């Protein structure tokens, strides 16, 4: 097959055989786990995205049939395929399946009627159907029948079963053979005009998923940079010559805006865009419609009924500035009217005729006005509101004016009556009933929680409700340093709980477990770090340290590092080094400056106005980044020079993880003034601490007294657990073990470098990072390991690094097992 081949015509006598073959391939495909299907489809997307020539050839083929400019088509294909890579595809499917009330049954056969020729239209229904384990039959448009066969072919290239479950054909709508095809389909997805949808409904009734024609508009209520906005708006208008439902056909301009200026800028932008994305040559009908609209606009301008006409006469685009608020009809093909509106009520009135058909609003508005205008758009039925310039870049499942059409592919049923939890859980498959309640009643932090229903954990192992056992190389993100459910910790907790749990807030009473733990820590630490302030978590300890350094120095400015992670409370987040996580929650604590990590030259920015510098001796979430040997000592010197305090965040590195008791021991010339601990500190119970000298910590005790308190910090049960855990760490000399075993682990992984996109392994002790050369590979690796019973995860701030932080007690044979699984997963 070459890019010039169109889809084959389907003859009536071929239908039965085709359906049978699809069904057979579908049976095999449905037996794969969902994760494996998602990964395979991700490889198909990667096949296209990694091959410029393939994409270009497909774009040329589509352009030849539709007339759209090839660069525009190529851009659309690439943007669409990116949405269907393994990770976003898996998220899409998981979200669709997470309905707490019903059981989902995937379709057997999806027939997708592509009665439009939007480039790449076949991608969404094909990937959705196959991901759900359904076969898919694509009915190509007579106007563009080249891309779908190319897509099916690429499926076959990746996997024969995957490819065997898909086919692309041509047949005439309404033919008798269509009755047979539709009868076999569990779902008929129709992308096309109302007539095509109605025809399908006659045959397939409620099995039809209708993706009919829609209208979009742009709303401009603020104009900070008219040229930039005009350029963005022009791209949205010109894309696919306005024949896509996401292009604005009308621009509503607030009466407070200089509409003439916008119109002129838009006209210039459309003219410039002609060079990059020339409008296709119009048929006589289309050019007649365009001509008619231009002539009418011109006459109305001459008659004083409209304000201005730009382009149109001899130009393949037109911008008309209207006086009236009521919308006027306009053809497609880069003809756009600018209508005025007054306030949210005026916007509502203007949009009223579009109700029921409104797809997307591109909105440019100041924050103060935005909410009311967006509400007016929603009231008019807009299913998507985004920025101007982003209209053509919707989420993956966006082709039906609705948020989750993936769920429409599925059949949903409740099952009422006597049923045990086990039966229900079994009916729901891998995700049990409790998972659905977890999703419903427990606040979620992402769309894709790991979702293991844990029933037991011991040592390096976690056991799930479905009986699967997982080797845990994450240890709850470095918390279970002595392994899960250590009997000494359990005994200590039980014993303390029977004596007393919480009696009084921190700092008032003398509680033996707290005092003992503080003293034990002091025995492990240098003279300058003898006093401990207990908290409930690492983030709380950071918050306390932040207040401490300001009070102790009288300075407000704090310095942290790019790539840093110190927790998610407001102060800790302000110190965090990834703006992606900070931005949505601004304003945070200020002033905080972030310096480049491991850059000694930047340390000059630490000056006499700096209260403190917060640093992780090894950046964990930042991608397991060990600094160069001189960096931390130079940092120490600089802080001393300017009188700033040096705060080491050893929430991850503390208590043996790096092969020494504390991370700073690797850099003796970099002794911190304040040390922050948490994670393994409580032996699995919530416990954090910030440690410093008595002199420094004393500032929190007065002026005012009780200036920093905590109810649960240093809770006796948690301290008892922490003390027991510290005992195990010391008796078994686990820090030294971490160094030895960590080195062996690292060497074993290093031998796998170069396979499956693994580039390098780095780290220190039993804090290891596996670096891949692209983000999708990390997701694929994590998923593959999980499928094979090994748990690990990637880092928050570095999407190409997989992080390992296993219990320090991990056995040698467990490491061998992990390495074997890695080798398989890397391929």
């Amino acid at each position, binding site marked *: 097959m070459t890019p010039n081949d169109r889809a084959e015509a389907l003859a009536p006598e071929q239908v039965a055989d085709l359906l049978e073959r699809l069904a057979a391939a579908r049976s095999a495909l449905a037996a794969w786990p969902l994760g494996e299907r998602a990964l395979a489809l991700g490889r198909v997307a990667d096949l296209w995205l990694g091959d410029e020539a393939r994409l270009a050839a497909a774009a040329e083929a589509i352009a030849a049939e*539709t*007339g*759209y400019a090839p660069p525009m088509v190529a851009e659309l294909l690439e943007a669409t395929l990116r949405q269907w890579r393994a990770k976003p595809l898996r998220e899409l499917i998981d979200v669709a399946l997470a309905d707490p009330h019903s059981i989902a049954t995937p379709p057997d056969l999806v027939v997708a009627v592509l009665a*439009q*020729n*939007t480039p790449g239209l076949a991608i969404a229904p094909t990937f959705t159907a196959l991901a759900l384990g359904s076969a898919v039959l694509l009915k190509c*448009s007579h*106007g*563009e029948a080249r891309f779908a066969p190319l897509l099916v072919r690429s499926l076959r290239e990746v996997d024969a079963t995957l490819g065997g479950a898909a086919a692309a054909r041509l047949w005439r709508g309404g033919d008798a053979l269509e009755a047979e095809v539709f009868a076999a389909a569990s779902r008929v997805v129709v*992308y*096309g*005009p109302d007539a095509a949808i109605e025809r399908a409904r006659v045959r397939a009734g409620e099995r039809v998923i209708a*993706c*009919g*024609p*829609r*209208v979009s508009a742009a709303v401009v209520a603020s104009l900070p940079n008219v040229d930039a906005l005009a350029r963005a708006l022009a791209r949205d208008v010109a894309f*696919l*010559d*306005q*024949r*896509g*439902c996401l*292009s604005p*056909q*009308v621009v509503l301009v607030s009466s407070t805006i200089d509409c003439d200026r916008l119109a002129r800028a838009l006209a210039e932008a459309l003219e410039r865009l002609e060079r990059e994305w020339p409008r*296709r040559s*119009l*048929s*006589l*009908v*289309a*050019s*007649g*419609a*365009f*001509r*008619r*609209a231009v*002539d*009418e606009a*011109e*006459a*109305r301008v*001459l*008659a004083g*009924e409209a304000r201005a006409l730009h382009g149109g*006469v*001899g130009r*393949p685009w037109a911008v008309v500035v209207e006086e009236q608020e009521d*919308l*006027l*009809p*306009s*053809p*497609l093909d880069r003809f756009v009217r600018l209508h005025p509106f007054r306030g949210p009520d005026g916007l509502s009135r203007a949009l009223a*005729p*579009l109700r029921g*058909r409104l797809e997307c609003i591109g909105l440019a508005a100041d924050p103060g006005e935005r909410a009311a205008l967006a509400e007016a758009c929603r009231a008019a039925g807009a299913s998507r509101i985004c920025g101007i310039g982003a209209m053509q870049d919707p989420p993956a499942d966006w*082709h039906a004016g609705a948020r989750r059409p993936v769920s429409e592919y599925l059949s949903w049923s409740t099952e009422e009556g006597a049923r045990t939890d086990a039966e229900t859980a079994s009916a729901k498959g891998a995700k049990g009933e409790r998972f659905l309640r977890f999703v419903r009643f427990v606040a979620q932090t992402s769309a894709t929680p790991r979702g293991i229903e844990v029933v037991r954990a011991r040592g390096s192992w976690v056991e799930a409700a479905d009986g699967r056992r997982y080797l845990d190389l994450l240890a709850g993100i470095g918390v279970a340093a002595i392994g899960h459910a250590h009997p000494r910790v359990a005994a200590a907790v039980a014993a303390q709980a029977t004596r007393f749990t919480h009696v009084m807030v921190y700092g008032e009473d003398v509680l033996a477990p707290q005092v003992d733990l503080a003293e034990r820590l002091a025995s492990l630490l240098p003279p300058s770090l003898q006093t401990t302030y207990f908290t409930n978590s690492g983030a709380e300890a950071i918050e306390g340290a932040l207040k401490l350094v300001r009070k102790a120095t009288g300075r407000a400015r704090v310095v942290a590092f790019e790539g840093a992670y110190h927790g998610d409370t407001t102060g800790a987040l302000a110190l965090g080094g990834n703006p992606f996580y900070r931005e949505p929650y601004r304003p945070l604590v200020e002033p905080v400056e972030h310096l480049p990590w491991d850059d000694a030259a930047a340390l000059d920015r630490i000056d006499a106005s700096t209260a403190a510098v917060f640093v992780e001796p090894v950046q964990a979430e930042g991608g397991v980044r060990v600094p160069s040997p001189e960096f931390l000592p130079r940092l120490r010197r600089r802080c001393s020079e300017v009188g700033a305090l040096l705060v080491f965040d050893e929430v991850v590195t503390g208590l043996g993880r790096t092969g020494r008791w504390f991370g700073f021991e690797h850099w003796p010339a970099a002794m911190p003034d304040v040390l922050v601990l948490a994670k393994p500190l409580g032996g699995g119970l919530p416990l954090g601490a910030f440690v410093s000298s008595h002199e420094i910590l004393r500032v929190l005790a007065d002026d005012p007294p009780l200036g920093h308190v905590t109810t649960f910090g240093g809770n006796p049960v948690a301290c008892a657990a922490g003390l027991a855990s510290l005992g195990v760490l010391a008796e078994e000399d686990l820090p030294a073990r971490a160094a030895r075993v960590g080195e062996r682990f690292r060497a074993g992984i290093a031998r796998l470098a170069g396979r499956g996109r693994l580039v390098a392994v780095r780290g220190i002790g039993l804090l290891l990072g596996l670096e891949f050369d692209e983000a999708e590979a990390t997701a694929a690796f994590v998923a593959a390991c999980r499928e094979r019973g090994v748990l690990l995860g990637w880092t928050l701030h570095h999407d190409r690094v997989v992080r390992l932080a296993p219990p320090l007690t991990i056995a040698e044979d467990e490491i061998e097992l992990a390495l074997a699984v890695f080798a398989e997963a890397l391929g």
Partner: protein
Amino acid sequence: MGVPSGTAALDRLSERVLDFIDRHAEATLDDGPGDGGAEFDALALEAFRFQYEHSPTYRAFCERRGRGPDRVRGWREIPAVPTTAFKSLDLACAPPQKTFLTSGTTQGRETRGRHHVPRLELYRRSALAHFRRMVLTDGMQPRIVGFLGGPEILPDSSLVQMVEWLRCDLGGEPAYLVDEDGFDAGRAAERLEALAGEGRPLCLIGVRVVFTSFLEHCRREGRAFSLPPDSRVVDTGGPKGGRALSDAGFLTASWHTLGVAGYYCVNEYGMTELCSQYYDDVLAERFAGTNRKRRKAGPAWLRARAVDPTTLEPVPDGEPGILCHVDLANALSVVAVQTEDVGVMEGRRFRLLGRAAGAEPRGCALALADLLAGRP
């Protein structure tokens, strides 16, 4: 509207056009010796310059198009006003003797085009001359029977005005078969029967939609007529909306129901915005002894060209384009008019095409035009 001191110039121009019409009423329908082409060109340019000077609206239109008299060298370059502009603009060089209105509504809004005609005689002379040439080629004097409303019902219709002039010229009482209550096919049939019985050849003239209603009624009723020999039928487009027979269907029905042979069925192509008309050349050709495929033919004072809708540049003969007309009978209003009709030029004659079916990429956009059209 217009400049009083232009009246003399207006009268002069009017006389020159009328003279041209009189001298060229029987001129060849094609390019060639005796077609009056050079004189036509000169008169067209004169009319254009007159309009440019005396119609501020038209001048503004030309300036927008960057085409003033200094840049227009021949009739083909005269900026043609789109018919749609007649809805918004008043285009005339002098106060009108009559204003004709286009029929029909546009997408729910009552917006009718206005053609202001300062000298009706230009219209009358042109209409009668070419009608005689193309429809009464054999010199017959049939009685006019109108399949449309009369002047009392449609006082603003240019077609009705033309038919009324024809009736008066040819003699005979008014016979308009559409009245205040609309068109009743049964009553019309009775009337036609009576008129046919008088023995004089009839010329049935009207809009295709009304003819269609009549012919279908007769077919259903099993009714047929035997019109007097040399009777003929002239149909024209008329208002949009309503069922209309195709060209082939119309010819067949005319033969079966009216007994009028195809070559006596002549289609007229005209519009409110033009004072002159084109007719099928079928009857003229027959009496000339030739027998070619029907095309539209205009008089020497009316010329057409087909242009590309996007660029407005002329397209070669044989290729479809939208039709623009230069009509000397419009010398005092708008001499060059651009239509929305698609045609294929063959020399000076042309074939009209219906809405051409194009290979249209069908995207997922619902055109605003269609969406708003669906509104009541």
